[in-house]
C-alpha cells in the first residue's frame, strides 16, 4: 500500500472536515457578496431621498415597487410627480453611478489578472486618457471615426482611442521582459501623451466646449439622462457576464502565461479578447461619465482581501462595491450640506487616494 493510500485511509474524517471547512469558506464569500448588494440597495434608497421632492426613505421602495409592477398614477397628481422625479430625474443618475462603478471595477479585476499587476485599471494603464482624447476630438471637431454622429459616434471614438493603450498593454504583458512596473509606467507615459493631444485639441475649441470638456474630464454624472441608460446598462451587463463566464480562466492567468498554458488555456488569444472587452467597457463608461479614477483600483483591491482573488467571487463583489463606492461619492457630491455640487470624479479621488495609500502601506508584505 502506498503512503498516499495510508494517508487517505487514516484521515477519512479529516477529509470530510476539510471539505466542510472549504464549503463554509465559500458560503462566507457568497454572503459577503449578498451583504454588499443589500447595502447598495439601502444606499440607493437613501440617495433617492436627497434633493428635490421630499420622499421618505422607506417610501422610495414603495414607489420603486409600484413602478416595476406597473402601477400608474393620475397625471400630475402628487404621486405622479414623485414617481416622475424619482424615475426621470434621480434614478438615471443613481443607476449610472452604480453601473459605472460596477463596470470600472470589473475592468480593474480583469486587467489586474491579465497583466498580473494589482495596479492595473483603465485609469493607470492609459485607456482613460486614450478615450478622453477620442471624446475630445469628437466634441471639438465633431470628428468621428464612425458615420453616426452624436453619442454613438463619440462613444465609438472613445472605444477606438481607448484601444490604443490596450494594444500597448497586450504587447507589453505578452513580452518577455514584462515587469509589473513596465505596464504602469508605460500607462503613465501614454496618459501624458494623450493628455497633451487632448489639450492641443482644446486649443481649437470654443469656450463653451472647453467648459463642457473640462467638466467631463473631471468625471460627472450630471450629463447622464434616462435615454442613455439602457445602452449603458445592456453594454456593461453583457460585457460583465462574458468576463464573468471566464472567471476561472482569468484565475489561471495569476499563475503566469506558462503555467496557464500548461493548464489548458490559450493564453495569447484569451488575453487579447479580455483586453478588448475591458477597453469596450471602459470606453463606454468613460464616454458617458468622463474620467473616474481609483474605483477600478480600490474596489478590487479591498475585495481581494475580503473574498480573496478567485474571480468567481471577486468580480461580483468588487463590481458591487465599486457601484456602491461611486454612488456614495456621487451622493456626497450633491448632498445638501455641500456648498457647490462637486463632480463625482473629484470626490472619488479625494476619498479614494487616501484609502488606497492606507491599503498599500498596511499590506506591505502581501500583494503589491
Amino acid at each position, binding site marked *: 500500500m*502506498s*503512503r*498516499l493510500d495510508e*494517508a*487517505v485511509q487514516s*484521515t477519512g474524517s*479529516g*477529509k470530510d472536515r*476539510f*471539505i466542510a*471547512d*472549504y464549503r463554509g*469558506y*465559500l458560503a462566507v464569500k457568497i454572503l459577503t457578496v449578498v451583504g454588499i448588494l443589500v447595502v447598495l440597495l439601502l444606499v440607493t434608497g437613501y440617495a433617492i431621498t436627497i434633493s428635490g421632492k421630499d420622499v421618505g426613505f422607506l417610501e422610495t421602495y414603495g414607489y420603486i415597487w409600484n413602478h416595476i409592477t406597473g402601477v400608474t398614477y393620475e397625471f400630475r397628481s402628487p404621486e405622479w410627480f414623485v414617481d416622475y422625479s424619482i424615475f426621470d430625474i434621480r434614478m438615471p443618475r443613481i443607476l449610472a453611478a452604480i453601473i459605472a462603478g460596477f463596470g470600472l471595477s470589473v475592468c480593474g479585476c480583469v486587467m*489586474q489578472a491579465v497583466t*498580473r499587476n*494589482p495596479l492595473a485599471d483603465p485609469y493607470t494603464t492609459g485607456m482613460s486618457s486614450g478615450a478622453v482624447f477620442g471624446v475630445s476630438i469628437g466634441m471639438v471637431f465633431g470628428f468621428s471615426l464612425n458615420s453616426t454622429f452624436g453619442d454613438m459616434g463619440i462613444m465609438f471614438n472613445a472605444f477606438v482611442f481607448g484601444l490604443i493603450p490596450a494594444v500597448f498593454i497586450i504587447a507589453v504583458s505578452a513580452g518577455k521582459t514584462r515587469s*509589473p512596473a513596465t505596464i504602469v509606467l508605460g500607462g503613465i507615459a501614454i496618459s501624458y501623451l494623450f493628455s497633451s493631444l487632448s489639450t492641443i485639441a482644446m486649443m481649437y475649441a470654443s469656450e463653451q466646449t472647453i467648459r463642457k470638456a473640462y467638466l467631463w474630464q473631471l468625471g460627472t454624472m450630471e450629463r447622464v439622462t434616462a435615454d442613455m441608460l439602457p445602452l449603458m446598462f445592456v453594454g456593461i451587463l453583457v460585457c460583465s457576464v462574458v468576463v464573468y463566464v471566464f472567471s*476561472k480562466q482569468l*484565475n*489561471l492567468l*495569476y*499563475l*503566469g*502565461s*506558462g*503555467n496557464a*498554458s*500548461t*493548464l*489548458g*488555456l*490559450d493564453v495569447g488569444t484569451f488575453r487579447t479578447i479580455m483586453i478588448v472587452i475591458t477597453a469596450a467597457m471602459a470606453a463606454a463608461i468613460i464616454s458617458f461619465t468622463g474620467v473616474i479614477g481609483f474605483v477600478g483600483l480600490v474596489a478590487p483591491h479591498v475585495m*481581494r*482581501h475580503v473574498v*480573496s*482573488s*478567485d474571480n*468567481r467571487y471577486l468580480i461580483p463583489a468588487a463590481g458591487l462595491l465599486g457601484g456602491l463606492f461611486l454612488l456614495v461619492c456621487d451622493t456626497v457630491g450633491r448632498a445638501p450640506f455641500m456648498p457647490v455640487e462637486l463632480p463625482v470624479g473629484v470626490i472619488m479621488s479625494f476619498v479614494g487616494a487616501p484609502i488606497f495609500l492606507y491599503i498599500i502601506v498596511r499590506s506591505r*508584505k*502581501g*500583494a503589491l
Partner: protein
Amino acid sequence: MRGAGMKIKIAGVTFGYSDTSVLQDLWVDLDGPQLVSILGPNGVGKSTLVGCICKILEPKGGAVLLDGTDVRDIGLKALSKEMGYVPVSSSDSFPMNVVDAVLMGRHPYSKWKTEDEDLEKVYDALVRLDIEDLAMRQFNELSAGQHQKVVLARGLVQEPKVLLLDEPTSNLDIRHQIEVTKLLKELSREKGMLIIMISHDINIAVTYSDNVLLMYNGGIFAAGRPWDVITEENIRTVYGVDCKIVDFKGNPHVILDDTVELSTDEQWEQPYTSEDHPALAMQDKG
C-alpha cells in the same frame, strides 16, 4: 500502473529568438516513470528546453514527441491532462488561500463549480506533502519552502503523466531542498510519473535522480546515469569549475574547488545525433 508506457522523445529540437540560437539540434529519449534532473550553468537553455517540451515555446526545428505524437498536434486542453508544469516560484501573487491556489491545478478536469471530487484530490495532495494544516492560510504569506510545496501540490492534482519543474529547489534552505527533491523521486514511483526538474544543486539532484541531463551552450553535453555524466572533466568543461568527485553512499559527490578559465570554443560537437542518442529509463524498481 497508470502512465506506464509514457515516453518523451526530444527529436532534434532547435530553438532561437530572432537572431540568437538557444537550442541546437537536441536528441534524447526519456522513457517511463523516473526522476530526471537537467543540470547546467545559467543561460545554457535549460528552461527553454522545458518550455519546448510542455509546448509553452514552439521549437523552430525538430519536435517533442509524447508517446509518439508531436506535442504540436495535441490540443492544449488534452495536453494539460498529460503534462504538468511548475514554473520558477515567484513571490508576487494576489491574495488567495492555499486550497484555491491548489484547486487551479484541477482546471483541465473541472467545470465551473468546485466539486467534492476536486476538493478530495486537493486534500490528498496536501496530506501527501504534509501541508494540510496550511489549507486555509494565505498563499502569499507562506515561507519559500511551504510555497514550493503548494505549487507542487497544484502540479499533483493536475494528475499529469509527465511533470516538469523549473528550479523547484531555488530559494529553499538545504533541508527543504532535500525534502522536495526526495519527494519528487518518491512521487515518480508512487504515481508512475516521469518527473523532469531543472536544478542547480548537483549533489542533491544526483542523489535522487535516476538520470541526469547535463546541458552546455544550447546542447546536451552528456545524459545518462549520474556516474557517467558527473565527472570531474565534464564539470570543468561545462561549469568552468575544478572539482573532485568522490563516492558518497554509492552516488557521485562533487567537492568544489576553484573556477578555471572557461573554454571559449563555441564550436563543440554534441555527442548525440538522430541515429545515436540515449534512452533514459528508471534505474531500479525500488
